[in-house]
């Protein structure tokens, strides 16, 4: 199909403001936007900025399902959504949500895809045509005969997109379709989205945090903050100002940020275009490095020797988690862990990564004493976890859930933090002291009498961590702590864990977010199909792209840019600051780079 943008806007938003019933603040504030057919628009913004509310005004959920005060107009094909029925809007707009299971109605993939057209009472041959179109657009041919519930996360999301495409919408909205997926599933869905770009002439609005992967498809980027559109333009233009994105808690694509920083340092010409993909950025830098006399050629192996020493030194500390020949077989016959031998020492900050089904959660459940090994032993502080009581374990290991709200159930912050210690019989002054200490550590002094649910998400996270800290655990486990959060919130949370680690708590983080693992973990354990694939210092592990590829994982984009520049002496880098610094060292020498880095601070 032709993807040329036509001049007639398919969607027009005029002076749109909206506030929920009973709320004082407007969630959307005077939004004016025009969208053309065939456009691919990327909508970004921090959590709670109004992205989902905006798309709900487009798909008719506002005002037809969710009531509130709406000012202004939303026109689809020139018709105001206020005057259209929800059923009519649904023939123009299709939405795919974060969790595909919330929108499944039937049991088989074929039934699911044709469910929408059948509800429109279309003739059988038209339904078949639409099925064919949706299947071609999303590439789900091999899934057609399958049961919906037997699919993996990525496959489910592709089926959800196919169901939306079967409606042949003028507007397709994808609301963070990869948030709940592992890297493999996310890549699968992103490939489908890339395919859609060529298969449909519909307007596609995508809300997504993985900017590196999707920016290359976007014609336009919209940046939202506090209910307003603060930037609207082609990706190269919007990402030319990374500070604006950082200010609102969004991480710009590494490729764009690296080039903008180099331009500011005068290492690249001011008219150098902003790259969209990491390859583009690597090419630009390589061109510069290749064309200039290189001041210092560093040996990549010796740039960060202290990190490797730290890893080796760790074994001299007391091993606090010891896993010996651990096997786990679930009742359905799945062998989730296959002979794991592992030691984690006091004071380590360990990141555990791997695809879904690699055994990450099973491993954690064993450390927490929730599962009984099929074979082998798990020891915490030299004691078999199976023989430890719940009270004993809870004083040793604290688990922070993905969603802090699942951990909050008391009426005040003070009671919430005191709940754990009270349950193990701590009373009086000791209890007061523990709560006070946790409040201070989590910077919650002054919030003692507030209701936990009335706090912001970041504060709720801190209350959840404080309620664990009051148990004075020596090990903290965080399972997917950043899912569904923007970069700003995730960063703050991980900074918190790093601070606790500095104070002596051993931290284990399971995550799919390679950027955050790279930035904070000192040691990375990569799991694949129940075995440990690599275990080593973070930088060393991420430098082995070839080995990581064995389990379809890839290092953060900034590391990949750096790895492409190895022939110029750039070592493995984990953050954009490191990459820019190393390029500066290579071009101008360490003295110059240190001076500039100092000035930047």
């Amino acid at each position: 199909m032709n993807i040329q943008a036509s001049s007639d806007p398919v969607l027009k938003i005029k002076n749109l403001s909206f506030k929920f019933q009973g709320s004082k603040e407007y969630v959307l504030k005077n939004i004016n936007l025009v969208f053309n057919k065939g456009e691919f628009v990327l909508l970004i913004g921090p959590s709670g900025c109004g992205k989902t509310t905006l798309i709900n005004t487009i798909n008719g959920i506002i005002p037809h399902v969710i009531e509130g005060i709406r000012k202004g107009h939303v026109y689809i094909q020139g018709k105001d959504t206020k005057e259209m029925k929800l059923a009519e809007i649904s023939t123009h707009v299709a939405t795919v949500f974060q969790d595909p299971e919330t929108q499944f109605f039937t049991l088989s993939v074929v039934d699911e895809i044709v469910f929408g057209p059948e509800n429109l009472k279309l003739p059988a041959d038209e339904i078949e045509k639409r099925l064919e179109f949706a299947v071609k657009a999303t590439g789900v041919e091999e899934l057609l005969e399958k049961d919906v519930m037997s699919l993996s996360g990525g496959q489910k999301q592709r089926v959800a997109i196919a169901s939306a495409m079967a409606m042949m919408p003028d507007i397709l909205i994808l609301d963070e379709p990869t948030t709940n997926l592992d890297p493999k599933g996310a890549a699968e869905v992103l490939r489908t989205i890339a395919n859609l770009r060529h298969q449909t002439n519909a307007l596609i609005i995508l809300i997504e945090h993985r900017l590196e992967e999707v920016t290359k498809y976007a014609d336009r980027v919209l940046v939202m903050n506090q209910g307003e559109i603060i930037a609207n333009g082609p990706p190269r233009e919007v990402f030319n100002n990374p500070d604006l994105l950082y200010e609102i808690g969004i991480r710009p694509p590494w490729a764009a940020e690296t080039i903008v920083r180099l331009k500011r340092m005068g290492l690249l010409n001011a008219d150098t275009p902003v790259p969209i993909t990491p390859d583009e950025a690597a090419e630009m830098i390589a061109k510069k490095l290749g064309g200039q006399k290189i001041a210092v050629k560093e040996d990549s192996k010796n740039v960060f020797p202290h990190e490797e020493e730290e890893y080796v030194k760790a074994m001299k500390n007391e091993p606090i988690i010891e896993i010996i020949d651990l096997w786990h077989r679930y009742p359905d016959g799945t062998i989730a862990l296959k002979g794991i031998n592992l030691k984690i020492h006091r004071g380590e900050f360990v990141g555990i990564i791997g695809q879904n089904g690699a055994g990450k959660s099973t491993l954690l459940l064993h450390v927490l004493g929730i599962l009984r090994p099929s074979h082998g032993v798990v020891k915490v502080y030299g004691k078999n976890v199976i023989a430890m009581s719940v009270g004993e374990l809870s004083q040793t290991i604290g688990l922070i859930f993905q969603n802090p709200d699942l951990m909050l159930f008391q009426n005040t912050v003070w009671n919430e933090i005191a709940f754990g210690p009270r349950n193990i019989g701590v009373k009086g002054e000791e209890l007061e002291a523990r709560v006070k200490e946790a409040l201070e550590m989590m910077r919650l002094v002054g919030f003692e009498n507030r209701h936990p649910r009335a706090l912001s998400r970041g504060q709720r996270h801190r209350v959840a961590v404080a309620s664990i800290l009051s148990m004075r655990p020596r090990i903290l486990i965080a399972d997917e702590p950043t899912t569904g959060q923007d970069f700003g919130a995730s960063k703050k949370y991980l900074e918190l864990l790093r601070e606790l680690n500095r104070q002596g708590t051993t931290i284990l983080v399971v995550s799919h977010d390679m950027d955050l693992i790279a930035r904070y973990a000192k040691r990375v354990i990569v799991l694949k199909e129940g075995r440990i694939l690599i275990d080593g210092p973070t930088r060393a592990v991420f430098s082995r792209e070839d080995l990581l590829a064995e389990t379809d994982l890839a290092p953060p984009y900034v590391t990949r840019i750096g790895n492409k520049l190895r022939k110029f002496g750039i070592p493995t880098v984990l953050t954009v600051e490191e990459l820019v610094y190393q390029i500066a060292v290579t071009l101008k020498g360490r003295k110059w780079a240190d001076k500039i880095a100092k000035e930047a601070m």
Partner: protein
Amino acid sequence: MVKIMNYLKAAWFGFISLPILLVVSQFIARELGLSEYGIVITLYKGAPMSINYIVRWLLLIENNALTGSNFYAVLLVWGLGWFIIMDWVRDYPAVVGGVVLTYLFYIIYLSIYHRYPLVLVFPVNFYPILIGVIAASLSFILRKRRGTITFFDRLSRTGVLVPKAYLVHVELPVRCPRCNTVVLSNAKYCWKCGVDLEKELYERGEMK
């Protein structure tokens, strides 16, 4: 400490499970209409029974306990019970000790809690102990002959082939044979030089 725990475990299992087994076996036998074969004793009348009453049967001190099929039905419970308990506890001396301890527990229970004169309850006979010890011994001999079934035996029965490298016990930390780097787990690859440790170390069994 483990030994003492095993004695207590065996005695506790016996103390709790034998009365349950007696009632359940009688209930099943009665429901299946097995009275004509002499398996249903006069114990079960279809109404709730006191623990005191059940224990008296188990000690064979109830009226008519030593007569006819009643006697064999009680001994069957002692035999079957200790045969199963041996399978759970897997510690022969502890289970034999458990038989004696259970017998004594019942006597203590009746004499202290229900004020039965010791002369009445102790020891009318030692048949239960004898049968319990024989049953536990039988279970022990059978287990010995059968051998211990490991997790890996069960896996191979289901047709799962486990690579040799996965079965090698690894003493941590591991040192890479190529670059001598320390690895704190049995990872497949060395993080420093990328050598395949599974092939180079574990498959050859050098870590044993």
